[in-house]
């Protein structure tokens, strides 16, 4: 499992999910609204969560499929974090332990930014970068550029300090 599936296979396969979701389920590709659905289920008193959540219920089913894929991979190949992917700068050492709970705080804070940012920007990598950039939507092109600028700052300047 050290060699990834080549991008020219994996990329078009991901792209194929978009028409399949539209044709089979009449849904536009996206996943981060599932967090809002969970919010609407657990904390319906918050005004933002008081919305027509049924439109997003399918994303929970989609997320369930994602969880199952991770679980299946774990059953077949074990923990992927033991796989040392091409050395990234001086992260070779971290490769074995990055998904260790001792890094839990960093992952928790990163997760908060992901959840907050996805709602504020009205979409994430799925909905903005793939679904809507492929319709040449201005909002999504701007969001995608912003994702990358934020990511560059985090990866180049923040991660070396906190990891």
């Amino acid at each position: 499992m050290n060699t990834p599936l080549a991008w020219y296979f994996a990329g078009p396969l991901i792209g194929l999910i978009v028409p399949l979701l539209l044709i089979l389920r009449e849904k536009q590709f996206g996943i981060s609204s599932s967090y809002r659905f969970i919010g609407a289920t657990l904390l319906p008193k918050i005004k933002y969560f008081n919305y027509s959540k049924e439109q997003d219920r399918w994303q929970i089913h989609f997320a369930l499929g994602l969880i199952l894929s991770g679980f299946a991979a774990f059953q077949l190949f074990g923990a992927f974090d033991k796989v040392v992917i091409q050395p990234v700068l001086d992260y070779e050492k971290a490769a074995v332990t990055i998904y260790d709970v001792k890094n839990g705080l960093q992952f928790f804070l990163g997760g908060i930014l992901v959840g907050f940012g996805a709602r504020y920007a009205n979409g994430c990598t799925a909905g903005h970068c793939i679904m809507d950039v492929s319709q040449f939507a201005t909002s999504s092109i701007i969001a995608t550029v912003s994702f990358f600028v934020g990511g560059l700052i985090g990866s180049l300047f923040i991660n070396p300090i906190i990891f």
Partner: protein
Amino acid sequence: MFKFIITLLLGFAFGLILLASQAFSWFRIQEMFHFQSFHMFGLLFSAIGTSAVFLFIIKRKKIKSAQGNQIEVKPKKLELKANIIGGLIFGLGWSISGACSAPVYILVGLHWQIGLILLAGAFTGTVIFGLLKGKNGLL
């Protein structure tokens, strides 16, 4: 039930692709932001290209859904400030956690401890947004 299974299978397939291509991995994300490999860029661009071709065909040929309805595709509304600031915050989180929204779920299955921490984080972030969104003048 049928709809549920279809959606579940599509999620499962999407997860397998992200796993096989290692796009779910913290290291691939760092590699991308350090411009050390074309892998992630090729992945994203070819996914967008493929999707664009199919969307074009669906609109052009007025293809109907499996339920027999006209497929409607609406792009997200432009919200300049939210797209930029929200995008920057999301990008920061993406690079720190090495996961965006879909890999968070994959990691729940693959690596439940970190996965659940990430999921709790992403949910907390969503709740914080929900609380602030209600306040006037904020966001």
